[in-house]
């Protein structure tokens, strides 16, 4: 395998996101992560819908397809089914995936087709200039609801896990190392890998994630989960998550008789969804936001199911050519 670098994945097109947009960091992290996957460059395919994030494929020097609004999962499914050897990445945003494309999004997760979905969540519509999105915080004032929204937002993790998603990770656009790590693990996971990236829109929704990503608060506001490790956070790593009855709580080791062994150990591979759902819902100020790979479980992939049926039918076929099919069943001769 020839050695590839981030430059091999950089296209000749000028990147046209706004200066300061979180998308730049995601693009750079992707271009750095791919060479490490030791796959041929021509096997990567990037499929996107419509929106700021969906311009991503133009900047990647891979096969790419900028499709139509909301439908990228369907295109990606077609690509993967047609050629299962390809590594298929879907790039989408909160409007593309959760508003116009909500249906395709949940069905991709339900089927567990082996693709990776990067959900750029900036809680706003950027390309149409600043309307609220399905993840915008309730009450936010935008052009399309100047008196504040009355919509309850979607939680991408609840949707994904509720749709039987087998892989859910979350990362912030200010943590390139964690992004690279998660992209790598998502590619290794067999099934639909959903990565929610909390991404800042400097123009229309600046600092919407400041309570999680702000320099002063982040050590107390981020819990970076690692499989098999205790759920510790804070500047001194002495705060952690414990289970009290059916609820999660933040506890400090050494306070109120809490010992290190009381802190929950993260198990991303647990089939039961309950704890993963609770972890993904945690938000400041009461909790830190959970980042890293929250859920990664084994489940048959859609493409494997389709292919194994195909192989079985081919092996046990009554006929192998179309001509044999055409002549099968009730036929009769007309003689001259």
């Amino acid at each position, binding site marked *: 395998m020839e050695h590839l670098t981030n430059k091999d994945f950089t*296209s000749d*097109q000028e990147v046209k996101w706004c200066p300061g947009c979180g998308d730049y960091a995601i693009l750079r992290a992707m271009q750095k992560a791919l060479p490490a996957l030791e796959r*041929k*460059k*021509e*096997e990567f*395919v990037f*499929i996107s819908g419509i929106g700021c994030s969906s311009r991503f*494929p*133009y900047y*990647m*020097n*891979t*096969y*790419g*397809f*900028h*499709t*139509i609004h909301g*439908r990228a*999962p*369907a*295109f*990606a*499914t*077609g*690509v*993967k*089914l*047609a*050629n299962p*050897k*390809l590594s298929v990445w879907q790039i989408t945003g909160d409007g593309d995936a959760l508003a116009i494309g909500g*249906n*395709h999004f949940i*069905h991709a997760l339900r089927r567990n087709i082996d693709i990776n979905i990067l959900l750029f969540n900036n809680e706003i519509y950027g390309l149409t200039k600043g309307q609220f999105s399905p993840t915008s915080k309730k009450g936010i004032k935008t052009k399309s609801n100047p008196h504040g929204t009355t919509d309850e937002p979607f939680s991408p993790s609840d949707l994904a896990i509720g749709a039987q998603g087998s892989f859910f990770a979350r990362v912030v656009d200010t943590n390139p190392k964690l992004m690279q790590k998660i992209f790598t693990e998502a590619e290794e996971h067999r099934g639909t890998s959903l990565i929610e990236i909390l991404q800042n829109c400097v123009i229309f929704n600046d600092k919407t994630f400041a309570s999680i990503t702000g320099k002063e608060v982040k050590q107390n506001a981020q819990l970076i989960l690692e499989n098999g490790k205790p759920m510790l956070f804070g500047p001194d790593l002495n705060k952690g998550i414990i289970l009290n009855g059916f609820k999660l709580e933040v506890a400090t080791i050494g306070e109120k008789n809490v010992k290190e062994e009381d802190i929950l150990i993260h198990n991303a591979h647990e089939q039961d969804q309950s704890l993963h759902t609770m972890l993904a819902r945690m938000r400041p100020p009461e909790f830190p936001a959970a980042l890293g790979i929250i859920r990664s479980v084994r489940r048959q992939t859609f493409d494997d199911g*389709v292919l194994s*049926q*195909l192989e079985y*039918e*081919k092996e*046990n*076929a*009554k*006929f*192998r*050519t*179309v*001509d044999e*099919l*055409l*002549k099968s*069943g*009730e*036929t*009769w*001769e*007309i*003689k*001259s």
Partner: protein
Amino acid sequence: MNKTNKVVDLEKVVIKFAGDSGDGMQLTGTQFTDTSALLGNDLATFPDYPAEIRAPQGTVAGVSGFQIHIGRIDINTPGDIADVLVAMNPAALKANKNWIKKGGTIIVNIDTFTKRDLDKAGYETSPLEDSSFEGYNIIQAPITKLTREALKDSGLDGKSIGRSKNMFALGVVYWMFNRPMEQTEKFLQKKFANKPEVVAANIKVMHAGYNFADTIEALPSSYTVLSANLKPGTYRNVMGNQAIAWGFLAASERAKKELFLGSYPITPASDILHELAKHKNLGVKTFQAEDEIAGICSAIGASFAGSLAITTTSGPGLALKGEGLGLAIMAELPLVVVNVQRGGPSTGLPTKTEQSDLMQALYGRNGESPSVVLASSTPGNCFDWAYMSSKITLEHNTPVVLLSDGYLGNGAEPWKIKSTFDMPEIHPSIASEGEEYQPYARNKKTLARKLALPGTKGLEHRLGGLEKEDVTGNVSYDAENHEKMVGIRAEKIKRIANIIPNQEIFGKEKGDLLVIGWGGTHGSLYSVVDSLLKQGKKIALCQFNYINPLPKNTSEIFKNYKQIIVCELNSGQFANYLRMNFQGTIFQQYNKIQGFPFTTIELESHFKTLLSK
């Protein structure tokens, strides 16, 4: 079995089976069809069923019918009206009262002519007891009673016994038309292989019906329809939807491309999905998507990755697929969209036939987004048009919309089995590794671009719905480039006229009247023109399969006739399309929008009026 009556030889006959939608009329009709086909009759069939799976029992809305036209002569339509009607209840009689030939034979299940069933059908008194059907040969068969009697020792429950009634009716009609019962017996043995008691019961009831007909004196004679003079060869029955599926399979094999179908169930197109889903052994991947949009988008994805990709739908589904189709036009990817048309607008008449999606197929997208449009015209040639759609889309890398309709899709006819090697070669336009590649560089003759499939080293590129720069395919907002690209996309479709055959006509090369049709109306138009030619009229039929682009010689044909009439099952969409393309030519119209095909009677009388002008 010994026949006690004399046998009368018929040239052709139309039989209609009608009953409640749960009465098994479609199966009864299909059995009669298969048996007649094996005897060498030419035939055409037309199922007519309600959109509801089980509409209220006994009501006119719930009547399901199956019409079959068999002959020893060339048969091109399922027949206008029936010579023989089987009516399993009063509602079936009422629904078909205008579709039975004056003086024809009506076999009724007299056990259902009770107050309750007459009420449900909206009859105050029995139409058999007043003058409603005076002059008809009514055979009052106690089908329910005799079926029960035949099966009283079968051990089957009442419901299962009730379900066998259709076999009694089939037995009666088999006797009337001197057909053997072996084919149906074999069918039942196969269908209910795990339920020998059901097989035995159905066979017994069919024989009971046969013997009933033989015994009663109501039928003065039985009839036979000798085998037709079909071209020598091996035949089978095909339905249009099945033939479409097979045409794609054949194209996939000849093009050496895996077939991918992305589809969402919709009447009357679902049978194409069902048929292809059966043939995974031939490498077909069928994907039942979450909606119509995902159906077309998954197909476009598969096409991008190298499959022969298709999506199948009916009118409302095509509306949903519009944006996806526009992308395939912009990205210049191969794709076939099959629209098995039904009555519209909106949900319209899901189980009825119409040709009202022509404009939608031609123009139903944003921007100027021309698509190739083809139409199949008989159940059998659905095979050829699915194949040609695949060939054009793969060689020119632009989407094709293939229009069929409910009448073709569900209709059946004997089909002389083709070999895939009878079909023309297919040469997909694809770049190979090492080639210098520009995504939007074009073949000078056809203007087709080449695809580069993901997985091909060195040909990485990006496609999308934003306007493309000529040659490079990069995103371009340049004003002049946009105008140029709109022109190229249109010209590319126009140039397909260079590779398609000339339009053919049937009948006189010059004359008084040119009848124009397109797609599924071929059978009725052909029958009428054939009949008028035999009457010495100077008439011809020009039935179009290539809709966009039109064959190059089209305008030449039009010059040779005094009058031109465009016949279609809509308000005049093709007529208007021709007016736009051939200004100055006068196109008269004959239109019908009733959910049914043309009858030969209405066409013949209208054409005669025109010819006498």
